């Protein structure tokens, strides 16, 4: 599903990641590592947001040679999402729906599931962090990505939303989608179908089967 080819990333002269060659099959992956180990950087590279050396392939689409098809196959939610305060939730929804060519009914279901209908037409500037986080998750699930990358998806979510997110991950995994997420919070392994854990050590990744 996801293939790293001689991937390297450095900030200035400080190398952060150096992944010679690695491949992840479809599944749900929990990316772990201490603060500053490069988890967010790796997720942002996979999401196509920051530059790097080497290449990544997702479902055979190279980020370098076929960036549109690659980006269509991946979707991403940031750890601390930030959106312009003057936009409304509807503005972003309609933008994502048109770019990702997703049906309106999909957004409607997600908005309803996360109980966001009351405030989705209002300006994001008046929202709480939890509301913004929910919006970023809804946007990440729009369209038909084959890999959904979630950076600290549990931060600022209430208990009901966390359970809903778990349910959604289970449902979408059943539909053949893959997930790669980071979380410093404890996750009860039985609540999510996590196939493997990925550790970032010495600038590279190691995968471990979940016991």
């Amino acid at each position, binding site marked *: 599903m996801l293939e790293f080819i001689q991937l390297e990333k450095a900030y200035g002269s400080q190398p952060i990641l150096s992944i010679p060659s690695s491949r992840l099959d479809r599944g749900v992956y929990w990316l772990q590592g201490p603060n500053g180990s490069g988890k967010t950087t790796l997720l942002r*590279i996979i*999401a*196509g*947001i*920051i*530059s*790097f050396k080497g290449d990544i392939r997702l479902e055979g689409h190279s*980020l*370098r040679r076929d*960036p*549109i*098809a*690659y*980006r*269509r196959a*991946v*979707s*991403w939610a*940031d750890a601390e*999402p*930030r*959106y*312009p305060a*003057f*936009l409304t939730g*509807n*503005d*972003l*929804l*309609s*933008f*994502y*729906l*048109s*770019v*990702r060519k997703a049906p*309106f009914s999909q*957004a*409607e279901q997600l908005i309803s599931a996360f109980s966001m*209908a*009351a*405030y*989705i*037409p*209002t*300006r994001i500037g*008046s*929202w*709480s962090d939890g509301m913004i986080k929910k919006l970023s998750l809804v*946007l990440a699930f729009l369209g038909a990505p084959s890999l959904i990358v979630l950076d600290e998806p549990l931060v600022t979510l209430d208990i009901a939303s966390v359970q809903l997110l778990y349910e959604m991950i289970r449902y979408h995994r059943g539909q053949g989608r893959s997930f790669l997420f980071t979380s410093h919070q404890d996750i009860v392994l039985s609540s999510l179908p996590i196939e493997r854990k990925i550790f970032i050590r010495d600038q590279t990744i190691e995968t471990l089967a979940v016991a």
Partner: protein
Amino acid sequence: MNHPRSVLWKALIRQYYRQNAGFFLFFFLFFFGIIAPSQQLAYHYAIILGILHTPALLILVLFCWLLYAIKCIRWIMGVQQSPDHVFLYVLPLMGRIRTFCLLLEIQIIFFLPIIFYATAVVAIACIQAVWSVALVIICFIVWICLISAALYWYELFYPGRLTRMPLLYRKATRKKHMPYWSFLLRGLVTQHKALLAGIKLFGCGILYLLLKIQTPDDYDIRMPFLVFSVALLGHGALIYETRRLEEEKLLFYRSMPVPIFKRLLQYVILYLLVFLPEIITICRLMPDHIRIKDALGFVSAGYSTLLLLNSCLFIISLQRSDFIKLSLGIFGILYFGVLSDNLILFSGLFLLTAGSLFFRGYCRKYG
């Protein structure tokens, strides 16, 4: 003033007029600033007579007032739903009728600018015995104030129901297609309105004044262009703020499946719209005060400079000092273009450079 009223005065009315000061100033200048003081009365009297005797104009005026009412409703609804104003939901404890009266009072204060003008129209209608128009205007104002207050009241007593109405929600989401450039434009209009208005007023004003004095016998565009290039330098601040907005709050766009040509198109459209007032000003002065070739040079030089500055920000870091140095360098080159009478050629080079820098910079920066 009792407590609820004084709290609402601070939380709603003062905040509304403060936030919309630019909006009111613009309309005040538009209606009262363009006519000499001695002719104000005659001017407005003529407008009011037009409203009284031309049904189409009356409908247009009522429509504009309705738009203003919608603006007020949207603003209050937004405030009511914001976490900062959650305390407003204790207002119903005052009782249904008292709450309604208080909200009606607020709506009337919001509507005061229109009520003042409508009073003048109604007074003249009564003097001229145009009773039907006077009645229509009075009923319209009363209806708008009552409906608006009723909507605020409903939102207070039944929070979220209005915005949860599936029909409203579905329409609001479905009908609007939001292109990316509109986010950037709204960023400028909402977050940097003073800067934008200042640059536009200065740019268009200086162009108008300096070109207006040009005559066929005494024609020299070097000085107007030099001053115009200062206004272009001001646009650099807008471009810088736009890029900062993208880096900080619109990060998600990079991960979207959008071809690079379409990404470039967003900036092409954005800066065309930003530069439109200058283009209109130059076109209006053509050919009496500026020759067609020079007008083309001004427009192409200005527009290509904006695109070039934008593209440069994909290559260099977002350090303000670096950007200022770069801007000064670009204006130096541009002024050499005007001195050598090759403005259009330089603009073409700027456009080509802007395009290639964008493709190179965007790919290098975002993988």
